[in-house]
């Protein structure tokens, strides 16, 4: 009796799910035709394909742009910010007459920070939803596998946050990393700053504590190379699993060695975890640098309070920057998502940059033909909220990060060169 009920339930669930997938498939085939195939005309503004003819001047078929983002899971914070950046860009484009006279429509799906899901998502966006263009997910971890999918279908892959060496060393020509410099170079303004310090302020010893993630490890490799070449001694070098939450053992060891400088290869939670553990272990470095974390002002401050003072990080953008469309973007973002100007995450701007680059390249060639687009993207430069951007043949951007330091309730830009707004504080106050 019991068994047969269970069977009925199972069978009805299967039938239901079949129905749902069937409906989904049917709906999806109504999406715009594949741009990779010659069937889709390279839509010049005048050349309208046979859309179901409404009465008045036919509204142009939208240009569809697909992305799979980590909206949940360990990259949810930056992933959500990237989604907002894409949406802000699309809103501004659509208010100003669209792209090539056609409205922009975003297809954004959640990959739960999972590589396999992200790959399947892009596969589906391209082959089932048949989007015209795709843009990248957040972080090298997801960019590396998904860019392969885009490459297989000949799609240009402008992406906001994948700058690890492994993104660029696979012989792909369709990747364009829309930040001022590859992630591995993120810490260069910081190491340059250290090496230029007078000898009595220059750290003699340093420790590197990094999450096992291609982005952070890439940055850490650059730091280790530059600082050891500059005569500083690496006294402690530790890599921990991404899910690590407890840093007491690491901190006690670091405190025992007491290096002058601590460099953390972190996302957000672990930057908070590390600093709290150093406080508990009584470790007071003279200089501290963390990759991501300090550049996400709200949660970083919430987790650490006054311990943020003097912490360095690198950033590619900040809300007050006087770059192309930056003020528009900030205003639009606040209108759409609320909050304060100073709370807008950097990842919003990186995703917005992706949109700007794509928009200018599409307008230059007058179509959404991905092969022509890839060729155009290699030309540049494009005007963006992070400054003028061009790419080399590997898709690496040609520019530099800014160096930030927490001073008071937020961070200040302390380098490099002409972009500096405040003087750096060295040594940093105790945390």
């Amino acid at each position, binding site marked *: 009796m019991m068994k047969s009920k269970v069977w009925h339930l199972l069978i009805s669930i299967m039938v239901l799910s079949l129905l749902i997938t069937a409906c989904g498939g049917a709906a999806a085939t109504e999406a715009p035709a594949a741009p990779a195939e010659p069937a889709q005309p390279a839509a010049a503004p005048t050349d309208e394909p046979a859309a179901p003819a409404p009465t008045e001047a036919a509204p142009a078929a939208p240009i569809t742009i697909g992305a799979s983002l980590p909206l949940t899971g360990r990259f949810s914070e930056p992933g959500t910010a990237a989604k907002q950046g894409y949406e802000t860009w699309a809103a501004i484009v659509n208010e100003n007459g669209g792209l090539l006279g056609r409205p922009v429509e975003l297809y954004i799906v959640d990959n739960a920070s999972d590589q396999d899901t992200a790959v399947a998502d892009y596969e589906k966006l391209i082959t089932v939803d048949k989007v015209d263009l795709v843009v990248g997910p957040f972080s090298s971890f997801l960019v590396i596998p998904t860019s392969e999918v885009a490459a297989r279908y000949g799609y240009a892959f402008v992406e906001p946050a994948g700058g690890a060496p492994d993104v660029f060393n696979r012989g792909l020509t369709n990747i364009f990393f829309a930040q001022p410099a590859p992630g591995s170079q993120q810490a260069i303004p910081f190491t340059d700053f250290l090496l230029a310090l007078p000898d009595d302020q220059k750290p003699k010893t340093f420790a590197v504590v990094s999450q096992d993630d291609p982005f952070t490890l890439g940055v850490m490799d650059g730091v280790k190379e530059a600082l050891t070449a500059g005569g500083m001694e690496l006294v402690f070098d*530790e*890599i921990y699993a991404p899910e690590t*939450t407890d840093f007491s053992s690491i901190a006690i060891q670091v405190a025992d060695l007491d290096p002058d400088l601590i460099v953390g290869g972190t996302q957000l939670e672990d930057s908070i975890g590390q600093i709290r553990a150093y406080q508990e*272990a009584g470790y007071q470095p003279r200089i501290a640098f963390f990759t991501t974390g300090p550049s996400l002002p709200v949660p970083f401050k919430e987790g650490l309070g006054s311990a943020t003072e003097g912490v360095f990080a690198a950033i590619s953008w900040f809300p007050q920057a006087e770059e192309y469309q930056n003020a528009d973007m900030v205003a639009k973002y606040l209108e759409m998502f609320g909050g304060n100007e100073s709370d807008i995450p950097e990842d919003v701007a990186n995703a917005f940059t992706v949109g700007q680059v794509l928009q200018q390249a599409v307008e230059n060639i007058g179509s959404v033909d991905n092969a022509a687009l890839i060729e155009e993207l290699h030309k540049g430069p494009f005007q963006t909220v992070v400054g003028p951007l061009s790419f080399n043949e590997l898709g690496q951007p040609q520019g530099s990060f800014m160096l930030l330091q927490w001073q008071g309730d937020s961070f200040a830009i302390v380098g490099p060169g002409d972009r500096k707004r405040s003087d750096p504080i060295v040594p940093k106050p105790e945390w």
Partner: protein
Amino acid sequence: MHLPSWNVLIQVTIIGLLTGGVYALMASGLTLIFGVMRVINVAHGAFLIFSAYISYWMFTTYGLDPFLSIIVSVPVLFTLGVLFQRYVLSRVKGDPGLGVLLTFAMALTLEGVMGSLWESTGRSIRTSYTSKVIPVVLSPDLTLRLPWVRVGGLVAAAIALAAIYLLLQKTNLGRAIRATIQNRSAAQLMGVNVESVQALTFGLGLATVAGGGALFSLIWTFNSGSHEEWISKMLSIIVLGGMSSLPGTFIAALIMGVTESVSAVVMTSYLSPIVFYLILFLVLIFRPQGLFGTRIREG
């Protein structure tokens, strides 16, 4: 393998013991629930994170200290536990496999609910005593730095575990629970209302995890997906302890706390979880019932 100094070893051992105490409170409910119901509550980690969120919410909204937020989270989780056992789990009592599946479904549901309520950003609570330590001078060159939150955590865990122990030993409900753990059919024959005992035990198990969640929120950062990692940790603890033994859970939790933190400095933090599992495998080879477990004779 690097050889850390004695100072470092002593420090990390103490931290490991303190952390183990908190683990013990977190895992004790899982032991109770398994003992009485013979169901592994896979949702235990999710309930842990859920109660951490309650503490986070009470702290950010009303400024209530996490130690005090248990006034809210314990009754809430107790009620949730009783209802879940009474109206969901008890429907599949004949099939423990289906029970595990149900608790797994519960874990996924809770994860979704928490994700939509609090987003999946990493959360942490920063009180006035976060990162503050009690210095204990052992010798001129060795000062132990005991973090307030972990010392508080251990004390709170000890009080809660003692309360559960007294409840089990001294009250009629406790006797009924222990009787049900030992032999459900016999308990039923002796007039124990096994259904109620099971519902109350599930509630009690979740009430302990509410306490654990409050401590958790003070010490670690968490997001709605954190439970997956913590349920595996808690399961390993109760397996080593002997599945339904409360003292076993306590000892196993301390072993886990200490091996984790000591092996992180002797080897690397990446390899440290392996050491605990090696101990677990060795114990299971020679004592399949775990440290304090009794061999189960299913009739």
